[in-house]
């Protein structure tokens, strides 16, 4: 049996159409878009077309799109770039307890440079409260960074409300939309977001490419220094084939958004129904109303997550949990710690399944069977197999 890939929140397989366009670009487009000759113009057109497609997908203007190497660079560029450009206005930044490390560590870095960072707490469903944001907002707040949808538990944040709350404040609003892009309709025209980062490989696009939306009125201090590409916002030669692929992947998302959402919702439903039918003992982590359809985080009481992940892999189901440390072992998730407390059993016994459009219903039925069986075995082997 082929292994079943349920870790799309980590990365997703490339869409064949996207791959075809990339290969075609690699073969036929050899120029540097900054060059003034015909080869350059040809490459420039590829980049501009992709940029246009991407801008359209979120209701932005082409010049508001900056190509990056992915989510991490976009987050760093937005947070560090905004902080540096605006430090005369203040040094206070607000973010949340459940951000991706790309945001967390960029903020930690800024803290080490003398900025002061406030972290918004989340409730047990992983959502921040607008009241706390209002409380923590200060006159000298220059940036608020709140992720669109959480990569571990899938909880969506009240992005629209935050954006409107900040509309009359000097603070810029950045959102890490890396996980949400692809199954959430986002529009920066009616939601006054200033900075939005995304990554190609989460939406069946190429790895190593992404974009940062930068509202026209916003200026960022560049974090890399070199050529004048991307209106001096991001130095470095364009990755033209990857940009072409990203444009195509975004276009496909835009054309198929409803299908993508419905597919993931259906797969999710199958998984939950099958697990229930199998009598598995589990709870869903996250928000029952505001969630990403592709992310399903499950708590299995009494099951050691390292054993569960290993056994699932050996049985051919690829899932995930928290993040691995550099020595390979599973670290307790900071997201679940923020939701339940750092000593809560949920932090040690929760599994993340993340679905993708290429998953079949049959795969999910099989995966649910294996998961239920494994959880059953692990909740008992702790006793039966134990050596005195």
């Amino acid at each position, binding site marked *: 049996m082929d292994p079943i890939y349920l870790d799309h929140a980590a990365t997703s397989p490339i869409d064949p159409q996207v791959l075809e366009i990339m290969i075609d670009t690699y073969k036929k487009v050899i120029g540097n878009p900054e060059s003034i000759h015909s080869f350059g113009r040809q490459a420039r057109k590829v980049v501009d077309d992709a940029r246009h497609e991407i801008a359209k997908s979120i209701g932005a203007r082409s010049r508001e799109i900056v190509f990056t190497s992915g989510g991490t660079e976009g987050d760093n560029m937005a947070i560090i770039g905004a902080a540096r450009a605006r430090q005369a206005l203040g040094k206070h930044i607000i973010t949340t307890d459940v951000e991706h490390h790309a945001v967390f560590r960029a903020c930690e870095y800024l803290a080490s440079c003398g900025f002061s960072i406030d972290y918004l707490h989340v409730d047990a469903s992983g959502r921040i409260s607008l009241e706390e944001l209002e409380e923590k907002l200060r006159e000298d707040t220059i940036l608020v960074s709140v992720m669109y949808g959480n990569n571990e538990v899938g909880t969506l944040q009240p992005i629209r409300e935050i954006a409107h709350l900040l509309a009359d404040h000097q603070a810029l609003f950045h959102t890490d939309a890396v996980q949400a892009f692809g199954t959430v309709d986002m529009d920066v025209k009616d939601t006054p977001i200033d900075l939005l980062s995304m990554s190609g490989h989460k939406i069946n696009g190429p790895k190593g490419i992404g974009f940062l939306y930068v509202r026209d009125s916003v200026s960022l201090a560049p974090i890399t220094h070199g050529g004048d590409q991307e209106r001096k916002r991001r130095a470095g030669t364009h990755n033209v084939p990857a940009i072409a692929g990203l444009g195509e992947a975004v276009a496909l998302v835009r054309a198929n958004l409803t299908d993508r959402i419905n597919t993931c919702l259906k797969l999710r439903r199958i998984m939950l129904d099958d697990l229930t039918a199998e009598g598995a003992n589990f709870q869903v982590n996250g928000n029952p109303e505001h969630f990403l359809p592709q992310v399903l985080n499950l708590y299995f009481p009494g099951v050691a997550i390292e054993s569960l992940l290993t056994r699932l892999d050996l049985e051919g189901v690829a899932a995930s949990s928290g993040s691995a440390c*550099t*020595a390979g072992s599973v670290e307790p998730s900071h997201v679940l710690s923020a939701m339940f407390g750092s000593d809560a059993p949920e932090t040690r016994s929760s599994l993340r399944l993340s679905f993708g459009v290429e998953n079949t219903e049959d795969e999910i039925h099989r995966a649910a069977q294996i998961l239920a069986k494994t959880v059953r075995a692990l909740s008992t082997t702790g006793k039966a197999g134990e*050596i*005195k």
Partner: protein
Amino acid sequence: MSGGVDSTVAALLLKQKGYDVIGIFMKNWDDTDDNGVCTATEDYEDVVRVCGQIGIPYYAVNFEKQYWDRVFTYFLEEYKAGRTPNPDVMCNKEIKFKAFLDHALSLGADYVATGHYARVAEDAETGKTLMLRAADQNKDQTYFLNQLAQDQIAKVLFPLGDLEKPEVREIAREHHLATANKKDSTGICFIGERNFKEFLSQYLPANRGEIRTVDGEFKGWHDGLMYYTNGQRQGLGIGGPGGPWFVCGKDLAHNVLYVAPGADHPALYSQGLIAEKINWFSGEPKDSVFHCTAKFRYRQKDRPVMVHVLENGKLEVVFDNLEWAITPGQAVVFYDGEVCLGGATIATVLNPGTDASIDFVDSAPL
């Protein structure tokens, strides 16, 4: 798999024999520094590389809490009590062949294999598993395995047991394994290359005290009794006539370190020992008094001894010949030919060959 050459070759040999092998890396100690770097990272990288080369899946598991609770706490308690602990013995008993074995079994494994130099075999008569010395007498590690129970060793494979260490390196080189020339690890794993004294001082308060000769003469100052072990010569910081000086005992109550002049001084010799925490691999001995051989430290040549099983559950081990620098806290391990019978922890040294009325910590109430 530790990322070293032994466990790598162990995995390779099993894979070649047709076993369905899974590599598991244990992270037992967090020594992450301010830059977020920990030594486990590099070892894990090696595991990743060699498992890729061998073609087996690999995973990591975190036993930091278990290691701290069951090994490191013991390690500190022993030093506090004036003994010299053997964390490797405890790590095998509690982590490698318990927490790790439990984990492996929960993954559906039939056996765990390690790169230890030792052998196991089934006793045709009893059906029990026997622990045997490794073919490479120089590398034999049964000393460190002496506390494993029958149900632990029944689930164990030691693929290197029949090999000599140079052969193991040769196999690794033949297969171009990334760890073929990696240096063997030495010392206590969680201390690594660091200064032992400095490490220990982070966890235990050091009380400076007097160094006295076995005749009661003041010789100088020690930095804390825990830093010294019987037979130690280096690092005492005392010289003068009559030396060189060797540690021969500790008086914990008065915080005095005793030294004897010359390696041959009778105070360094003893006639026997009392041992506790006894483990027999394949059941209690048939006789309560029997003759066998024993090791009191790793890599020592076997010594002939008479073992008396005492009614209080402890062992009295009487040496055929006087033995040098027997150290409380270390293991005594018993052998009958190739068979490793089991082992125990040295609690008390008997009849130190001196007339001095030193209240050695060794003779504290049992």
